[in-house]
């Protein structure tokens, strides 16, 4: 009570003090993860891009649902099959006062291979053959083959001034010496795993940022982050753990913001001729791989009750998934309907496939990559045991899981996948297409799935510059992969932010980024 009175008093005081000028204010955000470096070309890590976006702009930007919008480039179009022209924004200044021109964009692209680390940014320049400066505000990119996804790749292309030279490395960026961008905030300081301090860029070309000073504080521990908000040390936090969401909903001091994320928990059944971990009936290893039979995969899909997963297991923080991407993404098919739960039909299919009494199978998942991965894993094992299967579910730390998964040691796995670029090529090229080192496809296809029809339709899409035609092909590919149960999507995970009540307005983003310049003081 006294505290409330005190707050009212402070608010009244603030109102009288802040006359006509805009309310000057600072924002402290508690985040689960931050950058590994201030060099924007060091790593593709999501939390790295999220943090550095405040200081550096990209050529192409993305909206809340990851669809493209202009950034430092105002427009882009293919000139011919292997050439793209980007028209750049005029009158943009770097934080040191110098002008942004096409030279800086060219320099940024060429700098990447020289400085990038073990999460290489070259991923986003892999289609670039060469870069040409036509004039100060026109950049021409020659591509290796037809590259319709080039603008999508450039959503992570941060622009640094060419004046910093090729020798600037992480140390120069971390100290602030080379941390010069065109972004809405200027870099002040950063400590690894600590605070990143930013101050407003008054000359920003876009919408003026609302806060004078922003501190992005890394608090990886969930409970510590929640405590920091509740004790008033931070104004806002991301990744509110599910266990705290219910308590916070009943607490009038905090306000929650929820949205679907890009992350979907997918089941990956190995369809190789010989499964890595044996599948057994009555203790005897079966001949061949039962998972190769589409009826078996369909049966397992039908036995999943996604409503229970969402409402009970994830306590409401999810949405049933119909495919590998959320709605609205480039290549999402409307033809795929909600997946039914039908145990009878599932049992019938399993009997038809020759396993009336089920089989024993190993099922391996991650337990620390995304909220809920371990509990969904256990729940799935139980759902399949109703179908008559004996499931040895094991949820492992990502440190153990990913290297073993890369060696293809698991028969059936579940892990989260996010379509970071907002379009299907990213996901289908990595997960679903036949493994093909030459074309650079199927690097994460650990199931051995290979469907020539899918490869053809998807491959045609990647060679089609016309946007509508490409969209149609990707949608068709979505249907083929999902009918085939190449992977079985279960739930789209939701992410939750919390802030002090009545402090901020914030539109949650699918990519889970917390952008300080998109947060405004509440009306």
């Amino acid at each position: 009570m006294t505290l409330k009175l005190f707050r009212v008093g402070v608010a009244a005081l603030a109102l009288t003090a802040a006359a006509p000028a805009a309310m000057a204010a600072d924002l402290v955000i508690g985040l689960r993860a931050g950058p590994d470096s201030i060099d924007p070309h060091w790593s593709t890590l999501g939390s790295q891009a999220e943090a550095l976006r405040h200081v550096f702009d990209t050529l192409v930007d993305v909206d809340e649902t990851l669809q493209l919008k202009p950034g430092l480039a105002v427009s882009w179009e293919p000139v011919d099959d292997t050439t793209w022209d980007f028209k750049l924004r005029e009158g943009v200044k770097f934080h040191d006062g110098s002008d942004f021109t096409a030279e800086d964009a060219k320099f940024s692209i060429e700098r990447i291979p020289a400085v990038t680390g073990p999460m290489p940014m070259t991923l986003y320049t892999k289609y670039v053959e060469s870069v040409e400066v036509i004039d100060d505000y026109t950049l021409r990119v020659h591509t290796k083959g037809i590259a319709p996804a080039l603008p999508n790749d450039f959503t992570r292309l941060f622009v640094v001034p060419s004046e910093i030279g090729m020798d600037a490395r992480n140390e120069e960026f971390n100290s602030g010496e080379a941390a010069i961008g065109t972004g809405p905030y200027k870099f002040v300081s950063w400590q690894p795993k600590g605070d990143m301090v930013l101050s407003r860029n008054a000359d920003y070309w876009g919408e003026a940022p609302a806060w004078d000073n922003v501190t992005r504080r890394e608090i990886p521990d969930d409970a510590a982050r929640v405590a920091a908000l509740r004790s008033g040390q931070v104004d806002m936090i991301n990744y509110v753990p599910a266990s705290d969401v219910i308590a916070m909903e009943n607490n009038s001091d905090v306000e929650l913001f929820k949205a679907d994320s890009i992350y979907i928990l997918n089941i990956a059944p190995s369809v190789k001729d010989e499964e890595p971990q044996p599948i057994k009936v009555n203790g005897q290893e079966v001949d061949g791989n039962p998972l190769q039979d589409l009826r078996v995969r369909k049966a397992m899909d039908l036995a999943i009750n996604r409503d229970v997963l969402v409402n009970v297991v994830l306590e409401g923080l999810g949405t049933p998934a119909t495919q590998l991407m959320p709605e609205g993404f480039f290549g999402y098919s409307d033809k795929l309907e909600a997946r039914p739960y039908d145990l009878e039909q599932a049992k019938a299919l399993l009997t038809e496939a020759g396993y009336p009494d089920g089989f024993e199978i190993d099922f391996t998942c991650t337990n620390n990559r995304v909220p809920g991965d371990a509990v969904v894993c256990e729940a799935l094992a139980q759902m399949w045991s109703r179908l008559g299967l004996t499931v040895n579910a094991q949820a492992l730390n990502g440190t153990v899981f990913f290297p073993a998964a890369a060696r293809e040691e698991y028969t059936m796995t579940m892990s989260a996948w996010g379509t970071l670029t907002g379009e299907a090529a990213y996901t289908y090229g990595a997960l679903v297409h036949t493994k093909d080192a030459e074309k650079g496809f199927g690097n994460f296809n650990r199931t051995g799935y290979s469907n020539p029809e899918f490869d053809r339709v998807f491959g045609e899409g990647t060679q089609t510059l016309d946007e509508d035609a490409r969209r149609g092909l990707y949608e068709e590919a979505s249907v083929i992969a999902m009918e085939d149960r190449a992977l079985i999507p279960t739930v789209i995970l939701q992410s939750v932010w919390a802030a002090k009540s009545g402090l901020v307005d914030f539109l949650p983003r699918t990519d889970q980024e917390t952008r300080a310049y998109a947060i405004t003081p509440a009306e």
Partner: protein
Amino acid sequence: MTGFLLTRLAQAVLVVFAMSVLVFVGVYAIGNPIDVLIDPGATQAIREQLIRQYGLDLPLWQQYVTFLSNVAQGDLGRSMVYNVSVTSLVFSRLPATLELVLVSVTLATVIGIPAGLWAGYRPESWGAKAIMALSVLGFSVPTFWIGMLLIMGFAVELGWLPSGGRGPEATVFGITTSLATGKGWAHVILPALNLSLFKMGLLIRLTRAGMVEAMRTDYVKFARAQGLPDRQIVLRHVLPNISIPIVTVFGLELGSTLAFAVVTESVFNWPGVGKLIIDSILQLDRPVMVSYLIFVVILFVMINLAVDLIQARLDPRIRLKGGR
């Protein structure tokens, strides 16, 4: 004495070697760090190029030899995650951990030893029983849980102290520390208390056990018969005699607190080395893991050496043996 020191140093070098081999083999057995770090969208070509770039395609012994020759030149390597030198990474976070440990060990000693002495001096009194009950709580209740309770009580409900993080630093006598500012103390007090509870419980029990035993011995009876006041008997005669196990355990605890204060550091978001090492393990950042563990080995060897020297000071028998 010089011989004793040299033996200790030789032992330390051996342990450091063994440690680095273990970590190398261990990380190698878990898997390729690139598979943990790499971006999901990376192509096979990018992956292979990276593995070559970090020398992870070489046989293990060759990677180890490269590492050793770098260490011999004083280069512990660069973190794969942060791309800054491991030495600067560890030393940028060490002051925070040192502060935390210093305050918590002081708390544990200043409260734990007198409480233990009292509990051993009057074992049947109510006060002694209360102290013993609390000491059991101190080392049986998990640290993270007590930490959460402290935060809920003092930071969230009462709002007296901050819930985590380190306070602003100031420089006093050439040392930059957050202990030089009032805000710094407000930040350090909860995590230090949390970290000290286990050690406090341990010290109380050790001191009490020694005290109870010593009070029954003949020299105490003689001292009493001589008419010496109890205060003098306890502080002059009993305390030095029961100090040896206390100093040994204190040394071990100091080392493990410095190296592995990770639970408290996580709960209170304290920017120390414990959090750094856990993150490095999760990301298989091998250069950081190896260097940090080597640092910990050296730390333990040094603390044990200090403990040995103090014991020699306390007990003439040890001193005479060592001097032979």
